[in-house]
């Protein structure tokens, strides 16, 4: 392959004539982090709510949860991104729609992207948490009720604390997924890591270097997610459930 491979390109001035390409890529990493952290946080909160709805006793609550999950899980993420960015402002009252459209850069792209990833992530996390809740023995719920706890208290003090700890491994995958899904935001013009890599190849034509850098960026970010979640897993493991063995090994070595 006749290609002028050059790693020095990262130190050259980028399109704006002020910052180097490396600097631009780091800015992209910043937006990727901001986007995935906020979307992951929101998705965890609302995902818990929807998971509770899906496992609650009243049928109409289950129905709401199911409809939500099926809608947001079944529409391709790319389509959802377009809906949030282009269609939502048209459906809102005119003043609100105009305010959304006239929002400054890059918030005009960032906020729809956060909304999109949060709603999608909520549906996925809700399913993961539902699996966790349903994996608990039915006796847990009954015991809670027998002690006189209200259904809300049963979830708050008995079910959720256990469910979260059971689903930590699949939760790790979901968080890593959110980091990777955040690249879809480039389709609405947010210059996150993939967007910056694309811009870099557009100007410099050094496509392999640009996307190698993006690859390394995502590997590092998701590597950090794995490390953090591994720590969480060890710290919060339930006796006799997933992750407990590592915890015993570690504390055994210490004593």
């Amino acid at each position, binding site marked *: *392959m*006749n*290609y*002028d*491979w*050059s790693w020095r390109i990262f130190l050259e001035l980028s*399109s*704006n*004539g002020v910052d180097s390409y490396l600097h631009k890529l780091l800015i992209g990493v910043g937006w990727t982090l901001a986007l995935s952290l906020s979307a992951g946080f929101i998705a965890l909160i609302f995902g818990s709510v929807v998971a509770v709805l899906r496992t609650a006793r009243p049928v109409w609550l289950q129905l709401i949860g199911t409809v939500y999950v099926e809608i947001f899980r079944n529409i391709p993420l790319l389509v959802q991104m377009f809906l949030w960015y*282009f269609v939502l*402002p*048209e459906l809102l009252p005119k003043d609100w729609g*105009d305010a959304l*459209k*006239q929002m*400054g*850069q*890059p918030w*005009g*792209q960032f906020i729809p992207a956060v909304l999109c990833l949060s709603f999608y992530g909520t549906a996925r996390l809700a399913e993961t948490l539902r699996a966790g809740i349903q994996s608990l023995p039915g006796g847990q719920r009954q015991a809670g009720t027998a002690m006189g706890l209200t259904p809300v208290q049963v979830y708050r003090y008995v079910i959720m604390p256990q469910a979260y700890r059971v689903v930590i491994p699949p939760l790790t995958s979901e968080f890593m997924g959110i980091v990777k899904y955040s690249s879809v935001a*480039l*389709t*609405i*013009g*947010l*210059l996150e890591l993939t*967007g*910056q890599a*694309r*811009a*870099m*190849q*557009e*100007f*410099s*034509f*050094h*496509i*392999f270097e640009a996307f190698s850098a993006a690859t390394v960026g995502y590997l590092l970010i998701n590597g950090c997610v794995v490390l953090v979640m591994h720590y969480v897993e060890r710290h919060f493991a339930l006796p006799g459930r997933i992750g407990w063995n590592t915890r015993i090994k570690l504390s055994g070595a210490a004593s």
Partner: protein
Amino acid sequence: MKAICAVTTLAAFVFSAHAFAEGRIDRIKESGAITLGYPESSVPFGYLDAQQKPVGYTVEICEAVSAKIKTSLGLKSLEIHYNPTASATRIPLLANGTIDLECGNTTNKADRHTLVDFAPTTFVAQVVLVARKDGGVDVNDLSTFRGKTIAAQAGGQTFKLISMLNAQHDYGISVAPAKDTAETFLMVSSGRAAGSANDDGLAYGAVASSKNPEDFVIGTHGLELAPYGILEPKDDPEFKKLVDTAVVELIKDGTVEKLYDKYFNSPIPPRGINLKYPMSAALKKALANPTDSPDPANYE
């Protein structure tokens, strides 16, 4: 660490070894075929018609070039293969030998010459502004966009240009990034942006293929010139000479001008729209004195 070493060694091996010790000419002679890369949605430079066949101004120039190559190499027949490209795939596909020429709307820029070569310029694009007629702005005067939003392709040359002019004159314009020309136009038609900045050929294509072309107005004052050329592989002087000679011949004998009229001043497939875009002075000049210079100053 071992893995990183292995990958680096592999990469160094793949990219330092010239997979094509023999030139393109030998390969074309041997296989009796040439492969043209084309963009799928750059109306009118390279796109797909109703039968999903690649057509367009630059695509037809490339086809004419292939015919010339066939004659000058004395081949009985030369098959033309087509391969779709995107902005991210055109360089690798050209470098690894999948395509022999890229026929779209690639700007000839000096810093791209370390990776590819360009044939003599066959189109000179001007960056122009597009707006809605009822938008209350003058597309020929950037200062009327004060405090408004202009959409441009994210990371593209037009984006850089508008940001730069905006900073120079302190217009307070907010430059909104979008994925491509179609999307910048969508932002204008949906009211998200007051205007969009695009290369003129693509701007005419986007407006002409919209639902109500008469709702929009395209600027005539170019903010910057950008020469387009057919992409040629790097470091193959014989093949470059062959292609360049063919392109210059086509310019001289009026074929290029005829193709310009076909794609810019008459109804084009697939929907029979007419871009109605007379040839700019810059392009007339470039056709009168063919050059492959990347410097916009040479086209003014």
